């Protein structure tokens, strides 16, 4: 340890090793990842126009210092839904259903399934159980579907329908994953709160829509000016408490182009599709949407993506 060059070589070797391991190796693994073909087309796609300009506003204002863009997932579970009772004798099917899904009123479910599907059979089961039920029902001619359900606090808060994976960030630069959750996670804010008006009011003064919020007001992204001949259609509708006041002048608050860009960017943030490596369900679990007939199409790809 008294020889400078020896220390230099050792230090170089350890540094290069860590670079090799944590930069070069993952670069080989995921550095040239390409967008995937999903049901809705190609995912992800580049942001365009206002949303892309808004990304720059987001970066410039350092939003990343409070808001993360990473959805974490603790575990997953499966639900089983009945898509169709099939054409066989309902009694035979009902018998099987009663066996595999005790506690379910089989006849009622079968009757309902002919009008509205899917009908919930089982919830919160393991993948093996779900597959067995599917198999047993298939033998009777009925069609059941195992639905993949990601679990975790982030998903419960609707911060995303699934965990985020490398593919979600392919076209982001700089990637704003963030290390702080002083504010809520924004990965899915475009799907969670799509209204532009809400975002504009929230940016002007977060307390207008979220009482007690600690988010700074971004009033410099808005122009406060006297009302001209007519009130601008873009002007915010602010409660008395939050409206800017100047005696004798009627003021209005109008978003600047930066505010509009930022909102377009926020609206573009969504993690609500299913990927091969990160399957998901729709935001509401199937049991809750059983009253509508929409989820068949949306659940099917999710379940198809579930690990077999």
């Amino acid at each position, binding site marked *: 340890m008294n020889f400078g060059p020896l220390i230099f070589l050792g230090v*170089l070797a*350890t540094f290069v090793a860590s670079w090799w391991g944590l930069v070069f190796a993952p670069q080989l693994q*995921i550095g040239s990842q390409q967008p995937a073909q999903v049901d809705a087309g190609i995912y992800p796609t580049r942001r365009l126009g206002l949303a892309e300009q808004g990304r720059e506003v987001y970066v410039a204002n350092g939003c990343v210092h409070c808001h993360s863009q990473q959805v974490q997932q603790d575990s997953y579970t499966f639900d089983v839904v009945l898509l169709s009772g099939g054409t066989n004798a309902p009694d035979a099917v009902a018998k099987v259903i009663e066996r595999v899904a005790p506690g379910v009123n089989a006849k009622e479910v079968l009757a309902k399934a002919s009008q509205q599907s899917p009908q919930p059979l089982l919830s919160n089961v393991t993948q093996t159980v779900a597959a067995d039920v599917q198999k047993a029902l298939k033998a009777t001619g009925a069609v059941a579907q195992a639905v993949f359900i990601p679990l975790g606090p982030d998903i419960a808060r609707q911060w995303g329908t699934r965990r985020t*994976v490398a593919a979600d960030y392919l076209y982001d630069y700089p990637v704003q994953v963030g290390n702080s959750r002083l504010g809520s996670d924004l990965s899915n804010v475009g799907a969670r709160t799509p209204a532009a008006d809400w975002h504009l009011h929230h940016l002007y003064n977060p307390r207008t829509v979220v009482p007690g919020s600690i988010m700074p007001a*971004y009033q410099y992204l808005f122009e406060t000016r006297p009302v001209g001949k007519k009130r601008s259609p873009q002007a915010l509708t602010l409660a008395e408490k939050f409206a800017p006041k100047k005696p004798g002048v009627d003021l209005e608050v109008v978003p600047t182009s930066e505010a509009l860009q930022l909102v377009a960017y926020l609206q573009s943030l969504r993690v609500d599709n299913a990927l091969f490596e990160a399957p998901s369900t729709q935001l509401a679990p199937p049991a809750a949407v059983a009253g509508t007939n929409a989820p068949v199409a949306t659940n099917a790809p999710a379940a198809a993506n579930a690990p077999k």
Partner: protein
Amino acid sequence: MNGSPTSPVSTPKPAPLPTREEFVAQIDASCRVLLIPIVAALAWLLISSILALVASVKLHSPTVLANCAWLTYGHTRPAANDAFVYGFASQAGIAIALWILCRLGRTTLVGAVPIAIASLFWNTGVKIGLYGIFTGHTTGFEWLEFPTAGSVILIASYAVLGICALLTFKARRHAELFPSQWYILAALFWFPWLYTTARLLLVWFPVRGVMQVAVNLWFANGLFTLWLSSLALAVLFYFIPKLANVPLHSRSLAIISFWTLAAFGCWAGFYRGLPLPAWMVSTGMAAAMILLVPLIATVSNLWLTLGDGNANKPPLLGFFKTSVVFFALGAVFAIFAALIPQLRLTLFGEGVEQLTLYGFVGLALFGAIHYLVPRLTGIASEKFIGVNCWCTFVGILVYAGAFIVGGMVQQPKLINGSIPFAEVMNATKPFIRIGTLGLVLLVIGNAAILLRVLSLVREWCRACCAGCCGREAAANLKLKPAEAAR
């Protein structure tokens, strides 16, 4: 074997040998140029803590200064961090490292003029970088926010400082290397490698997608564990045996801690839940655990050295002792942050960062500056040391402590999806308020050390002028050489 920095000099020259005291005074005089980076670093330190205070106030009173785009939280927070790391810690760290290289190598400083010029440029780089952050020209990557103009100046001026440091190292007249020198030598290379690699891969030829996250976290972790920690450890390994007046307890332990830190230091930094390949996160968590080895080796080595020392210990030792304790706490908490779900994303993450920055790196550098500046200027004064010491110590405990406890309160709420997020957010408020109090103390402490150094420099200038102009000599203010050599 134990290379004590206080062992007598054996110069082979036949010329009339200067006494040891004269020789040390000669070395210190050659290092006077380091007052430039030290004063500048302390100015950045004060600016950094004021910016952090503004950021902290904004978190619990978001309407304060809401119309000022420059001072929004998203600007003040990164500006405070970068001013601390690049303005204060790196700059002061390099200056102190240069002085340690001179003292341990028994040689005078090489390249005083280039160092002075490079320091001025380094500060220009920090200024441009902070201006970039305030005006929204950040790169968007944590710890690398400076826009290209600022960072290029930093790299160029670092090259000059680094080369001067290497030349000083090369010119040493004492062949045996002390652990401080290993850390300094390694850090001198680690920083430019880390910084330029990260800039290249993130800003100049950016990698795609989450690879940016990988590179950014790799850099951020390296910046802390390799660069800042090495500088601070060099200071601790130098000053603790010196002030306790005993040789380092065990050189073998120091070798173990140095090489395990070098080998695993750069592998940590990834935490649970990141959208990275799972093996990277596991590697990061494993490395965080392995870093306990250098931690235990270093802390026990330094602590045993303190135990070996005589009872009569100079008060400055308190800075270094406390720094060791905060080093240990910060490293252990960093393991929790990597392993416990979402803990890194709460106030805890920031609390641990600040604990490491102020408690470990900051206190070590403060102690070194308090020791160094009187010897560079030749003026003895104890003014403001107490204020700096206590305000910084209590300030860190309050600030980092509030954030760490706040994070522990926030985390169980954050991982319970049935609790609305507004409630999670509200839970943080009291802790942020307490943190603001801690920051007020840190601002006072930082102002105190800046004032002390400025007053010493002022006295020195006066004494110097008086000497030059032949008026009353301020000799009574001057430190006696024997005292200086201690």
